[in-house]
């Protein structure tokens, strides 16, 4: 009996001092294994007198259970310690930047184009494009701007030797589309246009968007509605909008559309030249002469068209003040978008 007490005592000491799972495993085998100390003790029960055997047997079993519990407890602790060590070893500085390729950027004017395309697509408009080196017919004549028209001198045009030119607006796309497509028509065209002008507020190449709708019964009231919705959606603000009568050779009646200044809430600032208004669009009902050029019956069909400067819309949307930055392509500037 004393032997067993002694055994328990030394086992307890050894197990609680076990440093790692491996030595713990050694003690498990040593005490509880098939050839372990306690197994041997049970085997030796037979040598005891029969009356002592039950008490002795019971005692051995109690000690066995106690040692088992000790080992399990120690094992749990050691496992916990081991994970803690691993965790400590594996911990990183999560504030370090992730491994990466850089993120690129989409040019702000392109973002405006995509935005406008998405907005008009919701209303069933398709996007079309056309050549940038154009002929006089598509750029001028078919748009009711004959050779001697004063508007022809207003747009200083880049010419080539063969009398072709760089389109001065996106409107030729209208003509090309109407020639090949019968109403109902809903289209927008966006892209580069060119005029010989180079100063603080003009670049010789810039971008326009052109919209055209031709159906039976389309009216100036629809035009107002569509453009008002468009501007509100584009700027995500219910800004005041006004339609001013104006003149374009290819539309009649024509109007210019002003929008309450995005920068000053119409209090007056540098951007709106203290008027509170920003001129953002030109528009009107398609001129019957234009319909004549593309063989659309202007008695049956009516249509509206609008045009706007994409660069200006972009600048207003992003709060830019220098147009030229759009074409300098400084990567630090572009990286903002």
């Amino acid at each position: 009996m004393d032997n067993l007490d002694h055994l328990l005592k030394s086992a307890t000491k050894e197990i609680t001092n076990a440093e790692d799972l491996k030595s713990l495993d050694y003690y498990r085998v040593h005490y509880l294994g098939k050839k372990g100390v306690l197994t041997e003790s049970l085997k030796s029960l037979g040598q005891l007198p029969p009356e002592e055997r039950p008490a002795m047997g019971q005692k051995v079993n109690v000690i066995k259970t106690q040692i088992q519990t000790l080992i399990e407890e120690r094992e749990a602790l050691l496992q916990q310690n081991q994970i803690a060590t691993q965790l400590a070893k594996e911990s990183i500085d999560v504030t370090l930047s992730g491994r990466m390729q850089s993120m690129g950027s989409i040019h702000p004017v392109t973002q405006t184009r995509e935005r406008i395309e998405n907005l008009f697509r919701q209303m069933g408009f398709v996007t079309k494009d056309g050549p940038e080196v154009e002929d006089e017919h598509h750029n001028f004549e078919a748009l009711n701007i004959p050779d001697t028209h004063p508007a022809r001198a207003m747009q200083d045009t880049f010419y080539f030797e063969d009398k072709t030119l760089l389109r001065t607006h996106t409107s030729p796309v209208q003509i090309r589309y109407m020639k090949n497509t019968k109403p109902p028509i809903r289209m927008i065209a966006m892209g580069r246009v060119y005029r010989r002008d180079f100063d603080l507020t003009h670049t010789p190449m810039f971008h326009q968007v052109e919209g055209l709708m031709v159906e039976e019964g389309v009216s100036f009231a629809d035009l107002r509605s569509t453009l008002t919705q468009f501007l509100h959606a584009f700027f995500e603000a219910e800004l005041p909008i006004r339609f001013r009568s104006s003149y374009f050779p290819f539309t009649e009646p024509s109007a210019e559309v002003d929008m309450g200044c995005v920068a000053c809430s119409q209090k007056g600032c540098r951007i709106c030249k203290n008027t509170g208004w920003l001129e953002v669009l030109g528009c009107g009902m398609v001129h019957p002469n234009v319909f004549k050029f593309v063989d659309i019956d202007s008695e049956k069909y009516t249509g509206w068209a609008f045009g706007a400067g994409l660069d200006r819309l972009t600048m207003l949307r992003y709060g830019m003040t220098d147009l030229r930055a759009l074409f300098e392509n400084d990567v630090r500037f572009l990286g903002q978008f």
Partner: protein
Amino acid sequence: MKVSELWLQEWIRPALSRDKVCERMTMAGLEIESVTPVAVPLAKVIVGKVTHVKKLPDTDRLSLCEVDVGRGAPLSIVCGADNVKPGVRVPTATEGAVLPNNITIKKSQIRGVFSEGMLCSAYDLGMAEKSEGLIIFPDDAPLGAEVWDYLQLNDTVIDVSITPNRGDCLSVMGLANEISALTQTKVTAPDIQAVKATLSDTLPVVLQAPQKCSHYVGRIIKNVKADAMTPIWMQERLRRSGQRSISPVVDVMNYVMLELGQPMHAFDLATISNGIHVRTANESEKLALLDGQTVELTLDTLVIADNQKPLAIAGVMGGLDSSVTLLTKDIFLESAYFQSQTIAHTSRSYHLNSESSYRFERGVDSTLQVKAIERATELLLKIVGGEPGPVIDVTEKNYLPTIKPIHLREARVKVILGMKIAASEIENIFTRLGFHFEKTTDGWNVTATPARSDISLEVDLIEEIIRVYGADRVPTVNSAYAMKIHPLSAKKLPLATLRHTLSNLGYQEIVTYTFVDKKTQLLLNPSHDPKPLLNPITADMDVMRTNLWPGLVKTLIYNLNRQQNRIRLFESGLRFVPQGTTLLQERVLSGLISGPAFPPQWGIASRQSDFFDLKGDLQVLLNLTFAKEEFTFKSGVHPALHPGQTAEIFRNEKSVGFIGGLHPTVLQMLSLPQPVFVFEVALELIEDAHQPKAIEVSKFPEIRRDIAIFVDRSVPVEAISGTIKRSAGEWLQEVNVFDVYQGKGVPENQKSIALSLTLQHASRTLVDDEVVKLVERVIVALKDDFAAELRK
């Protein structure tokens, strides 16, 4: 068009405030650009008469002047102006006056001399941008009068932007008529009376080109004092309209043009030989013009000629020899109607723009000529005197513009505007505009005023209605349109997808000018002669790009110069490739990389970008078509690219573009300090996409076998993969090159290539024996095709 408000008020005085009138005009299509006071308020600046001028000793230009201001003793004033002389009447700022530049006039000492005021230029009084000497008043200017009152400086200049269709508004009268219609105020026109002739002298006038000039009015005035002075009020009105005072006769011509809109011209009668011919120019005629240049006249140019020679380019510019000078005694006045297209054509072909051609191009009222010549005569007689002859009025009736009634349907107004405007309202608008109308069963027959040559169609009338009614008052109504869904094809890869993919791969989109420097363009694409612009804006933007590399490279240089050395760019747009007599305008996508492959960071070792960085990204793009097997990269030749680092890209058998490193010589010519890699592909040829078809993924295990071979260095990997694919058969899922090596351990001129073959059967597990046989087959094929040796 700039106009003095006081002048305008002589014609019309609406009850509304100036701001309200301006707003009405702006909303009706006559946009007010600016409203500017003529001068800031002035006091104690009065009319003085210089009586003595004495040069101050030891000064360059200063004089001591004695100035009579009509009261008290004359003032002593030191003045530095060149045009000061005894007898002139000039603005005199007296003690206490505050000038616009905040100078307060005090008695002071200048160079030891006592000065009691200041003699003023237009600049000093805030009336001009720069000084051009003292303002000299006429001799009848009342001494002591406040200049503010005398010059009527309490005035504003209103600048109205006139659209090309509204030539009728290029005059005080036209604007007054327009304001009358918009504000329902009566025009109070000055009374213009016919001037009685006191001479019977006339000139025969022949209209030889009646389609270009159908109405010509002239008048002789003899014995004028051409060296008289233009009255100050007229000078001021001209100045406020942006015109310089030149001489009294010319000033009156300009004044009448500004007032009534009729351009006029005065000839020196002595230079006219026996009559006026309005004709087109003859062979090899020349004319010295008022602006100093001599032009050779083209045969279609309309000229005013006498019996021998051209005197003026009709409606555009007068000739130098026949112009009125200060010595002219007798003059011949011209007030004609020239057809707008003729003048537009002439003005454009000679690059001559004048106030006259500007108005004729936009259409002048064909009934205005007599009225204008009477007005001019009246003013001239007052200013330069003389004896007028009778009005010479020659008309070719058949060629005069006719003013036909236009039929306006009431229903059409509603169709175009989308709203109903009451008939009474429409009639009221026509009345306000001075248009005559008659009711018809379905609307009106409307006759516009002769000044409104822009109105010829029904829709022109509808525009007038909405303009006066207010475009902003039209409701916003959405009609119920039939909506239809447009097809959305998966067979075309949208450019937006390519753009966004590139952006996600680290590329920045740029937009550059499509006209580029010819030298750079030829350096980056010598095989095409770029299309030159006739009138480039600058010498380094003189040709249309034949590829997008000039813009990309220029942007690279721009950014390198700004310490940005890691660059990844792309651009899409048209390239303009001349092909014989035609021009190919092709949509392309181009990219460029240069500098470190990755942004500087702790986790990836820094290295420079190379060909394969760019190629990999391009492959990602091409794979978006779901047709990657259709694309091949073959070693190619491009004069701007490194001969050993150039691939031509093919889709099936068709070349779609190039990728490569810029040729070292090109880098050197562009002073580029580091390697640059570029690509360009034709969008038309790459954007066809396949819709992916689902194939069931095999559930049986994949087997991977690696082989390593030695082959000659010149054997392209693409060819090796091809042989493997052919010889391995349908179990082969993928071939992947995972190592390429040449150098130590590899025979001379050879390279070692390690490949992995992924094998899989669709419906069963492959057995080892089959795999061994397959690999043996592949090795034999590689031996046959490339003399490849298996690396042990």
